[in-house]
């Protein structure tokens, strides 16, 4: 049995591995934590630049990169969660005390939090990209 190649096409095998990931309370809070880090990054960088250099950070592209990285992580965790919500099992409403339903519950919650965090990161990024001075 061991070292046997996975059945079916490679794509399905990857999705299968995603479903096998260990999902915990810690993975649930990945998307909002990314929002928090992005938020602090934007706020502290602007605050320190303005206070110590007396000028708005010259590399506004850094905000673009930072925002893109944050959104990419949120999208990735959202996508993993999306795959996990489609774990086959008994039909909706998925509120039984089974392993699969617990996985689905954490996945749906993570997916929803990813959606909220995605929007919230955009909310934070907009002023960083539109306002460009320290007043």
């Amino acid at each position, binding site marked *: 049995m061991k070292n046997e190649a996975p059945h079916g096409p490679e794509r399905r095998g990857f999705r299968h591995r995603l479903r096998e990931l260990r999902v*915990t309370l810690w993975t649930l809070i990945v998307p909002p*934590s990314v929002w928090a880090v992005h938020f602090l990054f934007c706020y502290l960088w*602007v605050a320190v630049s*303005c206070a110590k250099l007396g000028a708005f950070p010259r590399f506004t592209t850094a905000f673009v990169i930072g925002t893109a990285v944050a959104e990419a992580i949120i999208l990735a965790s959202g996508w993993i969660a999306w795959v996990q919500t489609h774990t086959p099992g008994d039909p909706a409403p998925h*509120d*039984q005390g089974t392993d699969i*339903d617990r996985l689905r*519950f954490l996945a749906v919650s993570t997916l929803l*939090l990813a959606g909220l965090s995605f929007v919230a990161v955009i909310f934070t990024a907009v002023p*960083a990209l539109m306002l460009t001075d320290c007043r």
Partner: protein
Amino acid sequence: MSLHAQDDPALRAAQEERLREVWKPPTGWFFRWTDTNNNQVGVWYTLTAFGFMLFAGVLAMIMRAQLAVPENDLVSPATFNQLFTLHGSMMMFLFAVPMFEAVSIILLPQLLGARDLPFPRLSAFGYWSFLIGGVFVSGSIFFNVAPDGGWFMYPPFTTRTDLSGLGADIWMLGLSFIEVSSVAAAVELIVGVLKCRPPGMRLNLMPLYAWYILVVAVMILFAFPPLIAGDVLFEMERLLGWPFFDQAKGGDPILWQHLFWIFGHPEVYIVFLPSIALFAMIVPTFARRHLLGYPWIVLAAVGTAFLSFGLWVHHMFTTGLPKISLAFFSAASEAVAIPTGIQIFAFIATLWAGRVVWSTPLLYVTGSLAIFVIGGLTGVMVAIAPFDWQAHDTYFIVAHLHYVLIGGTLIPLFGGLYYYWPLITGKKLSDRLGRTAFWFLFAGANLTFFPMHFSGLLGMPRRVFTYPAELGIGGLNLASTIGSWVFAAGVAIVCVDLALSPRREKSPRNPWEAGTLEWLAHPDDEDWGIRSVPLIESRYPIWDQKDFVKKVDEGRFFLPDAEEGRRETIVTSVLDARPVQVVRLGGPSIKPMLTAIALGSVFILTTYHLYWAALVGAVVTLGMILLWLWTGTAEIPEKDCKPIGHGIELPLYISGASASGWWAMFITMMADATAFSGLVFGYYFFWTRHEDFPPSGAGLDGPGAFWPMVALAVSLAGWLMTIGARETNRRGMVGAARALLALGAVASLAAIGAGLAGPWLSGLAPKLHVYPAIVWTLVIWTTAHAGVGAIMQLYTLARSVAGKMTPKYDADVRNITVYQHFMALTAVVTYATIGLFPGAA
């Protein structure tokens, strides 16, 4: 005839008798107060918080009477300052937060089918701390020394001892003491939700109340400690003259505003979410269906918790911060409306989809939602910086915050009171009085606070003791005052209803026909909490699981007996609630009360500058805590395992990451690390505010790199030796473990000396400037922690020598290792900051 042993009525009666004996409350006029059972302590806690609410409400009535007509002189300006400060502080610190903890201490074990929360003595300690601190703070108004600087206590008026009296110290020290009890309760509630659920209650079957409480308790861990850090700096300035907020010596009052509002804004959600949690229990019961969108509610709770920490600066929009900073916080303030809206729509949808039973508690829920939504809408308005610049510090804000807090906290709690009263007393409250009271409260709240939007926009500032007639706001204020009396009449009707309760008849069991576990409680409740700990297969087991109540009552589930005469409950795994341990709970004891008195004496004596007496109090407190730990924790059981029924045997002792004690240490240290990061934030905040930070000159030169690095090295040595002691002990090398513990204690003590040597030898003068002051503060914090680390290492050594810790029963050394991990992190941050930061060396 079943083969099940529980079919034997005699056996069941004998079990019940044993359980009754074990959970019997102590008797006697004094010793009855030493009980630690949650359903006793929770009731005392709730009544005390309710009493403080009534008291703070009376203060508000006096204020409204003063403001009823222009140029009134009912109270003096000085008294008025004390009235609004105490009203705000009491409602927040002595009512809203403790009330959520009190209600949770009653409800949570019932909801989780546990006999009690994991640390009942900690709950009792929290209660006594709360009572002592609360009486101390609120009683100050009778001696005309109540705090008078507003509930936010902005420096510099409050830190300058020539401008503010004893009241500021009473606020700081009294409320710091209460924050200790809040953090204690948060630890209890988090570990309770994570580790004391009944078998089978996986994360996706947890009652939503438990989800909310988990989220809120975690928020407390990250919100309260920054305020504790702020309190430390504040009292250092007031009592020792260290200039943290004094502009003339490099300090900055804005730092206080940051630390206060990092606490203060999440605080609003800390008091709002538990009330929403009550909705999440009440709505499904009266909609007669499962709550719609369970994961959506969890999203809303967790999302709100996170976003609420990105809002604090919206209280500081007018302090002159850069507009770009305001924009970030404005964005987060707008974003938090999303999860808040989602949970309200989930409740509306559930009511829509259900067969609604129009009861009194549901009336309160719907009415409070209406009030809360108005407050939420004005919240979106003031989250927009240009509007806030106009409305800031006017009665518009008073209107907004009261709409939020009355709709989001107070009226839901009254709804919860009507809903859960049968659970506590076995008797229902009067529907007629309840509905009458509701309409008084609803009309009163709107009549009081709606006109304030207009008086604010017309230019009435907050916190003024009177106003001129020419302003044209006399009519609006009179309406507000009349409204406040209507509201008070509503509260009085509720009180009458409560007072009549003892004369009423018992109601049937589960009078609302709810589906969740807490309604297993019997009208003639026994003190054991739950007859047998059930196996859970559904979110609403009473509705969905066959013969559920009967099986629980007949002891057909787990742990139906107390053979060894000990209070016990089941500990389960975090994700899937698989049973892992039977934990022995602390019974009635006088130690929690005495510890609270000793700790209270430290805070209260310091307020009156009686430092030597306070030091004695601190030593007594330490002694009490050690005695408590020595006699009440990590007890080696008389046997390894015990059966809990259905052929399952569980260990009586576990250590490490699956034990509740380990979690308690981990969670406490999260709070500690958060407070520490508040202090570190202070250091870097001053660095951004000053061109020459760190400064140089006599008394200002930094501690250099040498001594901080020595201190760091010995701190890390103490940490490694503790890890070594854990590992050698685990492998049975007890002698080596003891040696490492002893050496670790020596290293920790050396870290104190080396840590203090840096600023001492470089002659840093903390009264001179904020730089020496913040360096000394970081060093004192870190070395004090090293001292506590040494005490823990010596304590563990003593446990090992006394045979209370062995290679197999090693919870003590595992728990102090968690402390040492955080200690090492603290040392790295402190000594790198003061020794290596550019310019510091």
